[in-house]
């Protein structure tokens, strides 16, 4: 057997009292796609940072192509031929795509623009080279990151949760890209918690739990249940089947809504029709950047449009002109896509973050904050929604993504809304937490709440929604009954193949 491309021996990294990685051994073979599987907080990201030189290990050694190396910085790692696509993108928002790429790839702008277009076509990573990154969707930004990495000709490419923002067709295309890269001799470290994906593409999988390796297997020889057990240490929780019930009164109605955003790079919306009744879950599917952001701001009230007052109705009232607070007064609750900075204030404690939306739950009297009630409310949210944190006084920014999401979803559900809108409910959340969040949403529906979900994960929408509408280029398809629709049908709407048939 040839020497592995990369070997780790006894890699250990400790942050304060948290032992993020404990004695990790890993061998990545030449020309293989190797999965790192684990829940959020299992130590996957730390391990990748050690390999990419962002952090240095406390103990252990790294052997790269047969030589001991100290990967002291990302620049050093890149020089050795290691590239990485981060989950939280490291792009510069005020620069254009080509400018971002020219920061690490030599060449004139014209050359780079041409190469970006070629790579984009070759690998299905189309993106406009001259666009500013701040105007790109999450999915498009990821494409830029991948292109940027590919342009440095890496020997080892690390991808952190690469498929979480892609539609199924693009996932297939990405997998073709990865297979092609592997066949050209590039090894790939593929971090994921999506078991089926790993089974379909990876040659090898290393499973992490609590910072330690708990398995090193060929994923094609195990089924998803085995993998899940190794990953979370117990059997997968089941989703409760939704109870069939008659939809109730109309809670949210968008009727022929048009919107032209201020930002000229943003997607404009036209002729949006949507009806959501009490006791049902409506999902909005679509590739990111097709108007989801604009739509969610219009529904949440972050963007108000007095001219479209009547086109947006909540609980039967026109609300287009009302701001977010006024809409919440009607019984509307909202979990935005960005947890930090929009769903929660990172520098504030969980207790104070509770206050931001739950102040009407008796936490404030005569303008004074009732700290006892605030703490009690927060403690209840932490306990009920299994938020792993030292307590209500912990800073929101210190929580892991999954835990913070559980907290924010919990906080909004505890407001006892009549209409709940959740954007990307489980993005970057580990399996255990994600299925807990989905169960809560189904429970809510069964209790007669109207639930609206925007998600890029089709499987998730199929699991919990009653009906799905697909957004593409600022237009919303007609509603599709989940029970009579296949995943592939939704996929075709997402890429526009059903444009005419659906309307």
């Amino acid at each position, binding site marked *: 057997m040839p020497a592995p491309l990369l070997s780790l021996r006894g890699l250990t990294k400790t942050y304060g009292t948290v032992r993020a990685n404990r004695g990790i051994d890993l061998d990545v073979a030449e020309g293989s796609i190797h999965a790192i599987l684990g829940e959020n907080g299992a130590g996957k990201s730390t391990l990748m940072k050690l390999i990419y030189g962002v952090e240095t290990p406390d103990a252990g050694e790294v052997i790269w192509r047969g030589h001991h190396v100290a990967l002291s910085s990302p620049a050093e790692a890149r020089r050795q031929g290691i590239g990485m696509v981060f989950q939280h993108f490291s792009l510069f928002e*005020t620069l254009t795509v080509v400018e971002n790429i020219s920061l*690490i790839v030599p060449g004139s702008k014209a050359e780079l623009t041409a190469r970006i277009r070629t790579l984009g076509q070759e690998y299905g990573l189309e993106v406009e080279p001259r666009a500013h990154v701040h105007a790109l969707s999450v999915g498009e930004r990821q494409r830029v990151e991948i292109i940027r990495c590919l342009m440095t000709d890496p020997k080892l490419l690390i991808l952190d949760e690469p498929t979480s923002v892609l539609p199924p067709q693009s996932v297939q295309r990405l997998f073709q890209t990865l297979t092609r890269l592997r066949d050209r001799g590039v090894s790939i470290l593929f971090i994921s918690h999506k078991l089926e994906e790993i089974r379909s593409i990876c040659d090898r999988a290393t499973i992490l739990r609590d910072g330690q390796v708990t398995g090193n297997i060929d994923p094609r020889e195990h089924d998803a249940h085995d993998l899940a057990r190794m990953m979370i240490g117990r059997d997968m929780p089941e989703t409760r089947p939704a109870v069939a019930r008659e939809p109730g009164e109309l809670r949210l109605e968008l009727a022929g809504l048009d919107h032209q955003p201020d930002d000229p790079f943003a997607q404009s919306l036209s002729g949006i029709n949507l009806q959501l009744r009490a006791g049902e879950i409506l999902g909005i599917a679509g590739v990111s950047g097709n108007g989801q952001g604009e739509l969610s701001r219009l529904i949440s009230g972050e963007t108000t449009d007095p001219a479209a007052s009547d086109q947006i109705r909540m609980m039967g009232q026109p609300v287009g002109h009302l701001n977010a607070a006024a809409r919440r007064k009607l019984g509307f609750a909202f979990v935005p896509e960005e947890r930090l900075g929009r769903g929660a204030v990172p520098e504030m404690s969980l207790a104070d973050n509770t206050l931001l939306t739950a102040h009407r739950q008796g936490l404030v009297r005569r303008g004074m904050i009732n700290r006892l009630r605030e703490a009690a409310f927060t403690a209840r949210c932490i306990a009920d929604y299994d938020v792993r944190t030292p307590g209500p006084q912990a800073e929101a920014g210190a929580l892991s993504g999954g835990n913070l999401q559980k907290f924010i979803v919990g906080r909004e559900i505890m407001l006892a809304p009549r209409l709940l809108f959740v954007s990307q409910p489980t993005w970057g959340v580990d399996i255990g937490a994600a299925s807990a969040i989905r169960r809560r949403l189904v429970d809510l529906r069964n209790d007669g709440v109207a639930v609206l979900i925007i998600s890029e994960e089709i499987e998730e929408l199929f699991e919990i929604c009653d009906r799905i509408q697909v957004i593409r280029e600022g237009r919303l398809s007609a509603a599709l009954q989940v029970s009579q629709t296949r995943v592939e049908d939704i996929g075709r709407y997402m890429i526009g193949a059903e444009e005419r048939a659906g309307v």
Partner: protein
Amino acid sequence: MNALTFVLAGMLAAAMPFLLAALGELLAERSGVMNLGIEGMMAVGAVIAFLSVHHFGTHTLGFLLAGLAGAALSLVFAWLALTLRANQVAAGLAIGILGQGLSALFGKSYESRTVAGLPKLSIPSLSEIPVVGGLFSQDAVVWLGLLATLTIWAALRFTKLGLVIRAVGENPSAARSLGYPVIAIRYSCVMFGGLMAGFAGAYAATVYTPLWADGMIAGRGWIALALVVFATWMTGRVFFGAVLFGAVSLAQLAAQAGGVNLNSQLLASLPYIVTILVLGVISSNRRLLKVNGVASLGKTYIP
């Protein structure tokens, strides 16, 4: 000589102290560092230049030493703000006050003395056109200042160096992860800012008003700072703002001399009001702010 001729001929020279200081600050802020000590660095540059010109009689040496003095003071600021990670606002204010104190100290025995200014270099034939001809007859520093504006504009827009500076200013962590030496780049930009502030002070004290008076910078450093912000960190707008300010200053002087029947305090405040209004209106475009704003400005970066 009518008022328009007067304004056109003099506005570039009047703009120069603001323009030079603002261009330097523009670069420092683009890299993410807010240097509020510009006023003090101009003051130090002014006194060093005045002393040099007074004793050695050469403007070249005067500007050189003034630039070095400004850069040296900004090095102290950079050390506080970047190496010791002090709050940038507090460190900048402290260094600014230090600079003004040093300036008063060195210049004490030179109060009210004068030096010779700089001769005008004219572009033949263009400078003989009626009314606008004055525009083409300027001293050497003005010509160099125009060249500097163009160079900085082009550097920020077209060069790799400019791209790196913008990247460092927007997201220092990401820039570091790409292997760029964030702190070193910020040091360089801050010191360039100090150098330009030194030149700006030198111009004010030895060319524009070649006469020493304590406190002669008189808030021009603060206006330069405001220009950078109002210009939404765009080189062209910094230039436009500085020239507008110079032009309106001269216009109100001409108006006063011409006996316009308006309160002189009101006239004297015109340059400020007009500049704020004009730049305020053009900087109200949210998209431009998004594209040109410096995301990490003023924030302490810990690698």
